[in-house]
């Protein structure tokens, strides 16, 4: 009888431990994904980028390029080429982003014009607030 009780306690103990070990991931799985990204934004002065030029910077550890276009205004894109990951450069004359590795061309909307890249460049939202540009 004693033995039986011991075994039952043992079973109950392990069951509880297992339940907790499964329940914790389940709760974590179901809880909304944390977006700590939102809080961090990049603010630059609009005079930093002359019209018709672009500036390379780092945003959330990602190399990005901010373009000041005469017609389209301020635009921000990830510089990472969607092909194999080289960094694209902005060409002001052609109004294109050109990848130095295999010559993928992207237009000002980030879409692929030519070359091997499979997807458009990742775009970041830009907000012009007076003298400042807020990225993200």
């Amino acid at each position: 009888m004693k033995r039986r009780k011991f075994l039952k306690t043992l079973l109950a103990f392990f069951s509880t431990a297992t339940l907790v070990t499964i329940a914790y991931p389940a709760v974590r799985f179901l809880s909304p994904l944390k977006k700590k990204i939102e809080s961090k934004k990049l603010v630059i002065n609009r005079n930093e980028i002359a019209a018709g030029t672009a500036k390379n910077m780092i945003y959330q550890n990602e190399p990005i390029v901010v373009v000041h276009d005469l017609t389209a205004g301020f635009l921000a894109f990830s510089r990472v080429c969607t092909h194999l990951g080289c960094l694209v450069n902005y060409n002001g004359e052609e109004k294109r982003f050109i990848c130095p590795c295999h010559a993928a061309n992207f237009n000002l909307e980030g879409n692929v014009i030519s070359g091997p890249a499979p997807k458009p460049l990742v775009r970041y939202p830009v907000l012009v607030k007076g003298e400042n540009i807020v990225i993200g």
Partner: protein
Amino acid sequence: MFERTRQWIEVRLGIKEIIDSGLREFYLPRGAGFSSTLGAVALVAFLIQAISGIFLLMYYIPDTAHAFMSVRIIMNKVPYGWLFRSIHMMGSNIILAVLFLHLVVTFYRISYKKPRELTWISGAIMFFLIILFCISGSLLSWNQLSYWSTTIVTYIPTLIPGIGGRIAEFIRGGQYVSGSTLNRFFAFHVAFLPFTLVCMAAFHLFFIGRTGFSTNPGSSPEGDSEPQSVYKREINANGMPFYPDYLLKALVLVMVYLASIFFIMTFFPGLFQPELATVQADPAMTPDVIRPPWYFLAPYQIVKLIPNKFLGISAILILVFIFVFWPFIDGVNERNISKRPLLRVIFILSITVWLILTVWGGY
């Protein structure tokens, strides 16, 4: 307090009564051992698949552009997404092993005999349903491996003369495996198959409840092996009660099942995920070796070996037919396999041939 709550519930639900009359007095034949619990293990395994599947459904996107990425997000971004996905994926493979064992035991004991023919048939149908589950599910992750193995598997129906091509197109929703195949398989996997399987399982359980568990004729022969023309429930008065004895036995094996899932997850995390499975599906890039999933290697090898397409597919269909309707094909009433050497030879041979074909198909 606790006691009173229990009383309150007991008065209204009468759980104790259900346990007492329904389960405690549902006796299994005396010799029933762990091998009789494999069906219960399969049931639990299926429930685990269902639950982990629902979890995955919360993040999965059934669309060619996003399917692969969403699986990747589940694996890497969602907290513990990898856990539920791995359980689902490992489970889908091991559940087949459980079913296979269940099948072997049932066959070996010749339990499919009267009055359990329908139990066998519903079980056989469920076996195919689970295979369909595996096939449709594997495509959903939309990687090179699953894309091309689906291509191969959906190639098999084209061997049927005349309408074969149409059937394949019907399955794929087009000329080749594409986004519409993905959507079809998705609907099939998460809506149609679960529903059908649950219905079949209900039948299966109903039959078992009605006829009782079958005995192992080797250890304790069933009273009369005369053909029963009337329904007679076996009472097994001094047998093993369903609750708690049988359920405890089942519990042990269920835990072994779960332990083996996590064992594989710990020590062979890449067992069912070869290199190709980490690349997004690309219809324009045929991999060097394309191969069906392991549970499909044997039929694939049969089709490959028989030089005539029609004969090949007929062989498969005949085998399926024989398998499903085996209780009617085997006409002898003797239920003790030791007294039926021929059947034993068939039994061992078919398993060996199946294994050989599987291994061979893997090359």
